């Protein structure tokens, strides 16, 4: 090569290859280069080049959205590995699980990682929703992204439910029998829907095929698409900025480059989570009971833990109400939340305002006391169907208690507004907190306080 050659590339072949991959000087040396590095990288440009400094404070978002994405990646990776050693048929599924745990190198570890990541994802996605709600993160223009997020939460539940059947053990068989029987209570099309999902009248080979296809192809693909859209909307709508109670809304906000301020935190957090997951999965095995036996329901036959709140509702209400009406109402209410009037300027403030914090705690306390009280009352004192023997149970154990509870909730909302002088927005948040607490308490009762025959027991 002559010295006046226009070729400015490195001399070595390897150097040229590396240069052609990375496109820029790495690591970037000044802020300008750092911003360009983020913008021109396929993965990194999910982030803006600069972010508001307070918005990346860990104790504002707790990294929950990013954590959900990390868990999805781990689930995809471990899930693909599991595909290589599993056959979805009643004859082989359970034996494949045994082989996975005893014969395949790191089989138990990969299964544990997949199992615990899936469980953790339910918690993380739910907490992410709560964080967005309590910091007012769903305000305009982010209403629709809240609805998208809600659909992702449902997809996470669907992925968990379909995956639950695949080990084909007693736990799987009966949890899915119970869960899919709920479909039968959908008005008009229930029977048809149940048979479509199960591929027949009872859980069997066709069900396993259906759930397998849903779990490994349909749900992951749909979820990847919707999650991509969700993240794209976050990027386009911008991050909400946290605010302390005494800060004015129009204060000056310092902005820092994404590289390294946000990226550094994300990488450290991801490494910590991966480390903890590996540690946990090395010590705690995913449950596997005896092979599925359609002749014997275990006692008690419980659903997966995240459906325990629903199962507890089923013990108190007619199934149409416990499984369809009440969850349906809750979902519609959640979807509508961001479209209601948000009448105080509280974006980025945890629990809206000082008074908001008060009524949130009040809602939690009421939920903590009222929920166990109602469960005990219904279990031992009030027996609506025998008090109203002339009515069918769908009225005496459905419409009547639901109407009573709705009236109580309206009364509660009114009381919070009067007693605390709360705005509609704060009172709504207090009501949300009350219902959230009830849901958590019902879930805990279902997990820990239900024993044989679903009777109330004390676990300690």
């Amino acid at each position, binding site marked *: 090569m002559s010295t006046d050659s226009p070729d400015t590339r490195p001399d070595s072949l390897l150097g040229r290859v590396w240069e052609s991959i990375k496109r820029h000087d790495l690591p970037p040396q000044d802020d300008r280069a750092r911003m360009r590095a983020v913008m021109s990288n396929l993965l990194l440009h999910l982030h803006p080049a600069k972010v508001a400094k307070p918005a990346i404070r860990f104790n504002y978002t707790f990294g929950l959205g990013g954590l959900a994405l990390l868990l999805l990646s781990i689930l995809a990776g471990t899930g693909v590995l599991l595909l290589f050693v599993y056959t979805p048929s009643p004859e082989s599924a359970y034996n494949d699980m045994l082989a996975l745990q005893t014969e395949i190198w790191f089989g138990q570890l990969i299964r544990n990682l997949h199992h615990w990541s899936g469980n953790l994802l339910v918690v993380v996605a739910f907490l992410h929703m709560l964080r967005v709600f309590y910091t007012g993160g769903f305000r305009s223009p982010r209403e629709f992204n809240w609805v998208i997020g809600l659909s992702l939460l449902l997809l996470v539940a669907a992925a968990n439910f379909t995956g639950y059947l695949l080990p084909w053990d007693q736990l799987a068989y009966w949890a899915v029998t119970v869960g899919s029987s709920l479909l039968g209570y959908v008005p008009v099309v229930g029977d048809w829907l149940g048979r*479509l999902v199960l591929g027949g009248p*009872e859980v069997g080979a066709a069900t396993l095929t259906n759930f397998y296809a849903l779990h490994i192809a349909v749900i992951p693909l749909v979820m990847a698409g919707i999650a991509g859209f969700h993240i794209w909307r976050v990027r386009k709508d911008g991050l909400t900025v946290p605010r302390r109670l005494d800060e004015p809304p129009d204060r000056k906000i310092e902005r820092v480059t994404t590289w390294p301020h946000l990226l550094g935190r994300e990488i450290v957090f991801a490494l910590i989570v991966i480390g903890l997951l590996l540690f946990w999965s090395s010590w705690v095995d995913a449950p596997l009971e005896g092979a599925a036996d359609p*002749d014997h*329901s275990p006692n008690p*036959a419980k659903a997966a833990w995240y459906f325990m709140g629903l199962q507890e509702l089923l013990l108190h209400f*007619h*199934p149409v109400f416990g499984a369809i009406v009440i969850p349906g109402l809750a979902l519609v209410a959640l979807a509508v939340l961001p479209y209601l009037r948000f009448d105080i300027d509280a974006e980025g403030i945890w629990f809206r305002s000082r008074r908001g914090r008060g009524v949130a705690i009040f809602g939690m306390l009421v939920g903590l006391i009222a929920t166990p009280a109602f469960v005990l009352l219904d279990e031992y004192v009030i027996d609506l169907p025998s008090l109203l023997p002339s009515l069918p149970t769908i009225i005496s154990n459905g419409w009547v208690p639901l109407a009573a509870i709705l009236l109580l909730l309206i009364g509660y909302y009114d009381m919070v507004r009067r007693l605390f002088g709360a705005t509609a927005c704060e009172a709504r948040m207090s009501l949300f907190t009350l219902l959230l607490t009830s849901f958590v308490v019902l879930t805990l009762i279902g997990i820990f306080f239900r024993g044989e025959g679903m009777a109330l027991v004390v676990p300690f």
Partner: protein
Amino acid sequence: MSESKKITRRDFLKIAWGAAGALALLEAGGIVLKFLSPKAAEGEFGGVFTVGNVEDFPPGSVTPFNAGRFYLVRLADGGFLALYRKCTHLGCAVPWDQTSGRFVCPCHGSEFEPDGMVLNPPAPRPLDRFPVIIEDGVVKVDTGTIIQRDRTGPDDIVYP
């Protein structure tokens, strides 16, 4: 008024395209649903079971037949009844509890009388039943027909 009612060629084409698109989506949806619908052979257990002679079952007895997924019940008065073991609440297999003389569902605590009547909710209706046929002292159960009922009654019971 009259002008807005007139359909222009552009409007007509818009509607036609829209309708064709909607029709295509409906057809695609129909094909997918039909493709995924369960095979016609429904009952894996749907045949007629010959379970034994009348005198094999003493009055006041409950005998499980796992292959047919039913209990053959002989009530104290000698009447026969075949109950589908699937709980009418959420589909668990309901075991017979000899000591209490009831069917007790392990999943959500529903309890049923030997004739299938609900003693304890949450089950919304009595256990489903299958037709019992008694010919020349031989008891048969037709598991191809699942009979749902809102209340129990004397019509459910077959006497030899």
